[in-house]
């Protein structure tokens, strides 16, 4: 056997396991989901209906409403994740005192399971007995307890806030690590040229971080769009559908409504939307040529 053929085989041997693994754990369920999306399911009885489920989903108000909530939620969360994460990273980068302890402290919201974190916040935001209302009332910011999860606007705000609380640490960590790779001499040279702090940030920090920011934001978008736990635990999509993002709609259609075919169709549509989002986002923020992985 030729040398390059042998090399090829070895290469396959290395990448083989992961492909095999993905077949079982991802490809099979995915094909199954596609197949189910073409059926009308009534529990164990299924009948083929082609694209009827897709048509139904696309003409259903609930789907479009859910999509718009998803978009709003994702845009709000990812923007805040990136902004706050960036600020925190810049802040922590300058601190020398108790570095590890501080970093771990700021990472804690991310370490706790999303469902557990959401439950803690449920308790904090309880209208009558929760501590948030109590604190706000005692400093005079509000004069009656607010129904944080009971009014549409506040509920949306609350879930965004909790998701930001959960999601910022990871972004902060990535950016913090990135900041440490920027060579000091770039900053020093700029300082000698009389650049202001803002100029240093804009012309040195940002370009150096660019690739990382793109990766972080793409991962974040994908994760946030398909996130279920926080909203599922806190509001289950209410009140009156104000926080019903697509994963929640999907879950409800599948398990409460027992309409798996329709749910699968929504899932596939969600997949395509996420794909579109991701591609669009990468195109928009594409790093310069020669620096792609």
């Amino acid at each position: 056997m030729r040398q390059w053929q042998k090399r090829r085989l070895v290469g396959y041997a290395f990448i083989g396991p992961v492909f095999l693994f993905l077949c079982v754990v991802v490809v099979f369920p995915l094909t199954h989901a596609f197949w189910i999306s073409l059926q009308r399911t009534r529990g164990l009885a299924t009948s083929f209906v082609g694209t009827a489920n897709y048509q139904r989903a696309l003409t259903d108000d609930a789907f479009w409403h859910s999509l718009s909530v998803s978009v709003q939620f994702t845009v709000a969360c990812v923007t805040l994740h990136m902004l706050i994460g960036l600020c925190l990273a810049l802040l922590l980068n300058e601190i020398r005192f108790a570095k590890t302890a501080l970093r771990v402290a700021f990472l804690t919201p991310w370490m706790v399971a999303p469902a557990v974190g959401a439950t803690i916040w449920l308790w904090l935001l309880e209208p009558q007995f929760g501590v948030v209302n109590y604190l706000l009332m005692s400093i005079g910011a509000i004069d009656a307890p607010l129904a944080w999860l009971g009014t549409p606007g506040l509920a949306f705000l609350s879930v965004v806030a909790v998701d930001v609380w959960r999601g910022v640490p990871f972004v902060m960590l990535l950016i913090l690590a990135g900041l440490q790779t920027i060579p000091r001499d770039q900053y020093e040279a700029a300082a000698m040229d009389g650049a202001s702090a803002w100029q240093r940030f804009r012309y040195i920090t940002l370009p150096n971080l660019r690739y990382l920011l793109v990766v972080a934001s793409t991962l974040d978008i994908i994760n946030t769009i398909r996130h279920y736990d926080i909203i599922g635990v806190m509001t289950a999509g209410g009140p009156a559908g104000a926080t019903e993002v697509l994963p929640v709609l999907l879950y409800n259609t599948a398990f409460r409504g027992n309409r798996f075919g329709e749910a699968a169709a929504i899932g596939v549509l969600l997949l395509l939307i996420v794909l579109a989002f991701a591609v669009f986002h990468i195109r928009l923020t594409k790093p310069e040529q020669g620096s792609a992985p």
Partner: protein
Amino acid sequence: MRSTKTLAALAAATLCATLGTATAQQPIVLQWQTANLTEKQYEPIWKATIAEFEAANPGIKVEPVLVARKDHWTKFVAAALAKQAPCIVSVDVATAAYNGYLMPIDKYMQAEPNDFRGAWSSDMLSAAKWKGKLYGLPIWGGTYAEIYNREMVVKAGLDPANPPKTWSDYLSWSKKLTGDGSWATAVLGGKTDTTTRVLLTWIWSNGGEAFNADMTEATFAKDPKSLEAIKFYLGLAGKQGVAAPAPTTTNYLEQTNLFAQGKIATMRNAYWAVAKVNDDNPAMKGNMFVAPIPANKANAPTMSTMTASSISASCPHPEAAWKFIKFDSGKKWSIERARVANWMPLRNDLANDPQVKADPLLAQFVQIGTHARSYPLPSPIWAEIAAGDIVDAVQRALLQPEKTEEIFRELDARLTKKLRDV
């Protein structure tokens, strides 16, 4: 070299260990899943039930499947689709039967002696039937009534011996019970089916109907009495201001918390709420009294929920499962459940049992329950609409009271479409 070998050996060992943890083979293992197994007030009872059953039936083991209430149905469905559902389950009978997840139990019931079969009225059994076949044995339930906090009632200058009988009485009581950091009652608008339950009791107490007789049409707004009831009830939180704030996130949990902590003076609830409140706040023991729901119509029915034990379609040992269900539905456990967890037995041969008679609250609930309609309503999409569409409409109406009629007309249209699509 050595480290590679040890690494590989370790990996192989781990793999073998994990593969080898398949559950060992027991004589017959029945899995039992109901959302209530994770409820604290029920735990001591079910543990005793299983222990006694296994002692009396060597060769059968009952394995409880513990799952949080909100995930109970998800887990059951996932298992049912893979034909691996637990043998004994308590789920929404109509929905589960319609989807093919349950096994009809007529033949087991027929084989039982008369005095067993006679313990259930035909009305009660029909609540667990789907398309003429019996899919579950009604085990326990709850009757809805109005529960009052005696101390708060007395403090407001009202007479506990004369609870309100009509809506206008109720409203005047409510106005007196509101104020000083507490309210008369709570309106349920949270995202669970208890919202729908309470709404229905108000509709029925006005002589209204939310659906037509064969469940093919929704009449929440179409029936003027029903619409009137909805406006009145939701108005308690709105313009009347006698209900605790944040109704759109109030479920059974929040409602009973508020009641136990003395923030609301009355609650529309079932007998099990008494046990819960007593647990939450021992100071409430003996401080509650019960009365029939205020109604605008003579002899208006209240609501009785029904929980049944069923056998899943894929169960490989239905006879053993039936044995357990029969055991669990026996007099002893029915009374235990009533005594400890405040779950009402659905057997009709217990009214004269001394233990039942000894508890005045229970006796009252039993009395009120003699004129009740069964819940859930027999539709295979009930679980979806009761915790979904109807709740959404209630929430919207709470947030925009001036649009109540429009919202419920929309609900009627949507529900009718879904009902016809079944």
